[in-house]
């Protein structure tokens, strides 16, 4: 296997691993808060479930970038990489969603926890409560776009 292939696979692995770690952390923490609310008020299950799921999207974005990368470097399709320069390009192209996915999922998890507390006290404010963690999502989407554009244009 060429060095270029190794670099590209590292990039593909990082985008799933880091973004997935962030999502697991965010969804896990929001899940604890959701369980706390449901243990006292089971009627809020659907609302807190939606808030819990929000930090999970970064993991999906990371997976998407990994699939696109694998489909272009000769693993799931495309042409195998021969040179280190192209491999490094794939690695760097994967980093935006890997790093931003990790950090944004962490913060989105904390925002979701705070908003689950808001829904616990004022269930009628669910619409507004959804918006706060959704704001954090913006930056994960931007990173996803950059990674996809970069990977598909190498």
């Amino acid at each position: 296997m060429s060095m270029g292939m190794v670099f590209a696979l590292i990039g593909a692995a990082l985008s799933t691993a880091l973004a997935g770690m962030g999502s697991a952390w965010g969804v896990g923490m929001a899940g604890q808060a959701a369980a706390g609310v449901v243990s006292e008020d089971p009627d809020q299950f659907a609302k807190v479930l939606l808030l819990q799921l929000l930090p999970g999207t970064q993991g999906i974005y990371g997976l998407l970038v990994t699939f696109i990368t694998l489909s272009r470097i000769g693993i799931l399709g495309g042409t195998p990489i021969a040179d280190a320069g192209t491999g490094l390009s794939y690695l760097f192209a994967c980093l935006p969603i890997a790093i931003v996915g990790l950090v944004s999922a962490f913060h989105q998890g904390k925002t979701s926890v705070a908003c689950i507390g808001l829904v616990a006290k004022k269930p009628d404010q669910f619409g507004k409560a959804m918006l706060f963690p959704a704001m954090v999502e913006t930056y994960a989407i931007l990173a996803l776009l950059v990674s996809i554009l970069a990977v598909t244009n190498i």
Partner: protein
Amino acid sequence: MGDLDYVYAVARIRVKEKSLLSDADMSQMAGLKDVKSVIGYLTDRGWGDTGTGNDPEAILKAEEEKTLAVMKELKVDSDVFDLLSLPNLYHNLKTGIKEICTSENNADAFFAHEKYGRDAILKILSEKNYKALPEHMRAAAEKAYDIMLKTGDGQMCDVIVDRACLMAMIEAGKKSKHKLLREYAESTVAVADIRVAARAAKTGKNLYFLTEALSPCASFDVKRLARAASEGEEPLMNYLTSQGFGDAAEALKDSPSAFERWCDNRLIQTIRPEKRNAFSLGPVIAWYLARQNEIRTARILLTAKANDFPEEAIRERLREMYV
């Protein structure tokens, strides 16, 4: 445990905060005609349980037990409980010393305590086995017991035990990793010092008494507070105002009950920011203290209704609620 490990507990507490009584509830209860109506209002809000019936004390006790049960379910650290239960622990010590020295049965005046309930305290004191007490209580217990035996001076006994309690709170607060507990301990000691100074100024106590009774805290210089209180009520109010406790001075001018109300409200103001905190144990501790404040205010209200206090006098005694 780190701050982020309490998200489950805080989320549960957020739901429970919805059932706390508000200022409007208290005001509404103050306007009800008698104890029965107040009990009806409380039971409609879920107070008491199947065995409590219409007995006010049983209802309040059931609420205290429910609060403790929630704290146990949430597995709150033992150091938090230790600090929060210090006033009850020292109260039991004071009551125990007086019961032994005066041979009067005060069984109802003791707080329930896992280790230091009535029987344990009386046994320790009668055997003078002070080592069986927590370390921070031993010296005060011995000194207060000796003074009570030799002089029968219950007030000095109270001063010694109360001061030891406040010192223990400050020490426990300093050691606590929870910011709210540190602030609560500081606020409790500052309020207790102001309360002691106000009473001493009113009854003309001397500087020696005040120096013995006041506990050091970070909110003000205790020596200057003692000096001001020994000079009278006016110098005390001036000193309090200069230290940012102008509202305490105003309450003192108003009436003793207004001042007592200020003391309790000050503690509620200390914990109120926890309503906006989504992490850490702070909101759980705040809820526990809010419940205690709620039960205390309900007790005041029920006692006042039982004694046919006029509505205005009851309203003056109502404490600020957390929600």
